[in-house]
């Protein structure tokens, strides 16, 4: 056996020592794909309706009316309301048509497994006291929640979920700087703990939405243009979540290049932008999960404790 062959054999033996859980990986990747597809469909719906708005306004103006006289306009694909101000700014609020929202349960390209990720934080019951968010515009400190799941669950299938929601710390008072649509100004971070024989499995996920009940957008950002030699430029995520004690990053799919901001992600009432989570086995201790939407420079940290 040559040195090369020996090295190949030894490397493979060393690599085999690394445990992998393909079923769990498939489930996690499938979750990212589902969330990305849903956000992208909503973003496309917004783009389409924005074009419709422009066409309708152009027709109204061409017919001798004014944009302000357009009032309420109904289009077949959704409910759309336009209001105007004395300036050139136009606030647009769009509720997606049912056909848009019913496509969110698209079949996953990866076979889901029973090791699925946590349900959406907005639908799971809150098992500990949550800190309610202050009204938007009021400066709030970073949200902190102590999660002590000790003794509450004992089986694999039982889940303890702790949810905290809040506005980002340090957000300046007053209306969001850019309209329309409103900024995403409220985040919910979910921490789910599965007690297992080998320790606590912790899953963190995040939601991002507009506290006033309207739509909001986030976009990706230029990420690592020179370091993807096979693909060229790329864009960073619109929303991501990290946790101390885990090296990974849960990411809502990155925007398309070029431009990065050309495919924004849209949150509508009841359909927040979700940062797909990740799961790891966490030793007892104090942790912090942070939901970040880099394009806006905002983040919401949530502290939690995994009991021994």
């Amino acid at each position: 056996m040559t040195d090369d062959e020996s090295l190949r054999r030894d490397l493979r033996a060393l690599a085999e020592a690394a445990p992998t859980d393909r079923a769990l990986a498939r489930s996690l990747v499938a979750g990212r794909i589902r969330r990305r597809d849903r956000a992208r469909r909503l973003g496309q719906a917004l783009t389409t309706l924005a074009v419709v708005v422009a066409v309708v306004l152009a027709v109204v103006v061409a017919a001798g009316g004014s944009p302000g006289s357009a009032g309420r306009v109904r289009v077949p694909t959704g409910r759309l309301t336009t209001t105007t101000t004395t300036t050139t700014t136009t606030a647009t609020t769009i509720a997606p048509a049912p056909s848009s929202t019913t496509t969110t349960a698209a079949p996953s390209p990866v076979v889901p497994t029973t090791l699925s990720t946590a349900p959406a934080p907005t639908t799971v019951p809150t098992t500990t006291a949550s800190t309610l968010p202050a009204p938007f515009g009021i400066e709030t400190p970073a949200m902190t929640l102590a999660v002590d799941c000790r003794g509450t669950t004992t089986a694999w299938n039982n889940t303890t979920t702790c949810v905290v929601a809040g506005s980002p710390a340090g957000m300046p008072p007053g209306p969001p700087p850019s309209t329309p649509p409103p900024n995403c100004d409220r985040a919910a971070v979910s921490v789910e703990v599965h007690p297992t024989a080998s320790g606590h499995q912790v899953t963190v996920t995040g939601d991002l939405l507009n506290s006033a009940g309207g739509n909001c957008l986030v976009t990706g950002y230029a990420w690592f243009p020179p370091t993807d030699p096979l693909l060229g430029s790329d864009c960073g995520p619109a929303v991501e979540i990290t946790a101390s004690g885990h090296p990974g990053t849960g990411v809502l799919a990155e925007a398309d290049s070029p431009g990065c901001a050309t495919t924004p992600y849209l949150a509508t009432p009841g359909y927040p932008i979700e940062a797909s989570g990740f799961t790891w086995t966490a030793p007892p201790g104090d942790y912090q999960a942070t939901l970040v939407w880099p394009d806006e420079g905002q983040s919401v940290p949530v502290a939690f404790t995994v009991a021994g």
Partner: protein
Amino acid sequence: MEAYQAFFDAHYDRTARALAIVLDDVDLAQEATQEALFRAWTRWARVSAMERPEAWLYVVALNVGRRLGRRQSRARSGGPLEDRAGDGPGFEQQVEGRLALADRLRALPPRQLEAVVLYYLADLPVGDVARAMGCAEGTVKATLSGARRNLGMRDIERSGT
């Protein structure tokens, strides 16, 4: 999307394990591989048409792993690779051999380690390794030659490298 599922099943374990050696962190390697496979899905038409999509997967996973590693370098939880060795026949001998190899690999400069893993473990041709590392093929050959010397191997001329 049977083709994507087949791609996933064929390459997840191999990629994650190769990255575990490069990054010396099992959890980080798995996270990076999952992110790379997710990106593969978002560009599947393009990736699947590549001559060697698995090479693309390695490269993207490596880039993601590097980035996550930098970001989380002070918050590692995965543990080094040798800690995850399982039990079984010849366990002590296996662990001893792995520790020795892991120590030698860890002593390599990062570029040499990447080249070794991509060339010897991922079985990428020198051209793909060069693209992955963003350098010329000659540089890859020189890097592999240096790695061989550092690993205590005979540095003989080979037709491929």
